[in-house]
């Protein structure tokens, strides 16, 4: 029993990890075939796991409604939204369009006349885009609040951000368009400075981070394969 609970997962992770690691170096077709197949296996398992999540969120809100916790009315909104979209997925009132891919028996996004499509485009998409667009305001307040030249580092951050912000819009570049576009003075044009900043220090900074992150990724993977790291199973050792 203890074996099934504790050791077997470690064995599975070791076998799978070692195998996928090794076939990276083997170009032969049979090995690559198994590798490709494993990739699909993993996505399928992940798809099943999605049910866990749906179970959690619905359960949580149903409990909220049952116990009449404050704001349980909104939980109704959530559940009704979910149910409505699920019902819209099955458009028994309209046949799938002629010649549409045969393997979608019900109406999802492939059916532009369906209710699912309508809900997607007029409810989900606007809200998604709006949540995204709120970023414009938050990025502004973040910049205003924290771009203070308190320390040398903060000043460097601030100056780089201001140059790039101006260098990417016509208003900014027209501020320095009186400088010649060749020779030494051209390097003071905002667009030239922007491009230099993005290409040299920006690239180098991120390269440094990436090198470290790569080492961290490999270290963690090695720990998982050799069963040293078991956090993913929940709990410590």
């Amino acid at each position, binding site marked *: 029993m203890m074996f*099934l609970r504790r050791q077997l997962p470690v064995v599975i992770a*070791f076998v799978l990890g070692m195998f996928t*690691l090794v076939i990276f170096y083997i170009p032969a077709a049979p090995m690559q075939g198994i590798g490709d197949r494993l990739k699909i*296996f993993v996505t399928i398992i992940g798809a099943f796991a999605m049910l866990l999540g749906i179970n959690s969120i619905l359960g949580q809100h149903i409990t909220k409604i049952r116990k009449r916790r404050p704001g349980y009315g909104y939980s109704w909104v959530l559940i009704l939204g979910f149910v409505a979209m699920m019902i819209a997925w099955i458009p028994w009132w309209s046949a799938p369009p002629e010649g549409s891919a045969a393997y979608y028996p019900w109406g999802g996004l492939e059916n532009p006349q369906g209710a699912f499509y309508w809900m997607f485009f*007029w409810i989900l998409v*606007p809200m998604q885009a709006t949540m995204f667009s709120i970023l414009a305001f938050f990025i502004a307040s973040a910049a205003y609040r924290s771009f203070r030249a308190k320390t040398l580092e903060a000043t460097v951050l601030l100056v780089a951000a201001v140059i*790039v912000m101006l260098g990417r819009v016509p208003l900014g570049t027209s501020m320095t368009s009186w400088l010649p576009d060749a020779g030494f003075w051209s390097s003071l044009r905002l667009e030239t400075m922007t491009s230099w900043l993005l290409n040299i220090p920006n690239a180098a*900074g991120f390269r440094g981070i990436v*090198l470290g992150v790569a080492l961290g990724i490999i270290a*963690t993977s090695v720990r998982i394969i050799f069963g040293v790291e078991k956090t993913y199973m929940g709990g410590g050792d």
Partner: protein
Amino acid sequence: MATFIGTWIAAGLTLMILSFLYRDNPFFRFAEHLYVGVSNAYIVWLVWATIVLPDFIGRVFINLDPAKPWSPDYWFLVPGVLGLIMLTRMVPAIEWMSRWALAFVVGWGAGFVIGPVLNSYLLAQLYASFPWVNMQPYLGAPASEYIPALINAVILFVCVVTVLVYFFFSYEHKGVIGGAAKIGIWVLMVAFGASFGSTVMARVSLFIGRARFLVQDAEPTGHAFSALLTLGLLIAIITAIIARRRQPPAGESEPAE
């Protein structure tokens, strides 16, 4: 008709979510909960239509494309069974079984990343930092191109090394290491600043897109009404500011830096 209703619902939901900029309010909470509900249903569909149906059911149970010969591939029952094992999480008594499926996924992921990460994160990045490699296109170029390129290649090199030194954890940042780490943190700050600046553009254009939807695309009543709506919203915001200025918020802590 569907478009007409849709436009107005979309415009309404847009304003409801934007109202969050002022503060949390019932409109936003309504939109938020609707959004979560609808998006969960969308995810269910997406997973079904792009993974479960074509990759699982279509390989084991049903021929989805009758025009082609097909025979079931029973190997794909393995992920199906593991997926069901994953669902034992819902049953506390046999919850531990789900670890097998987890170990499968995580073990696969661990083995899969090592090779590609070494290749494209480590080796390729390392190689591209050697000045000789970066100078290849400029060999034989006139001095006016050669010298700036050389300076850039050297700066790039120094930046990469100093950032690496910053990420040294075994030594205290003192002396030479401390100095290099100091330069490293400046380089990082330049990188973050530049990245911040270029992202501002992306984010602002998203709001421009939404604004365009409200001002120009909200057919069929067209510009006039939506412009009115927009102005109304702006007036509401200003009023709110003035109102908040007059009476200091009671019991609410001011956002501190």
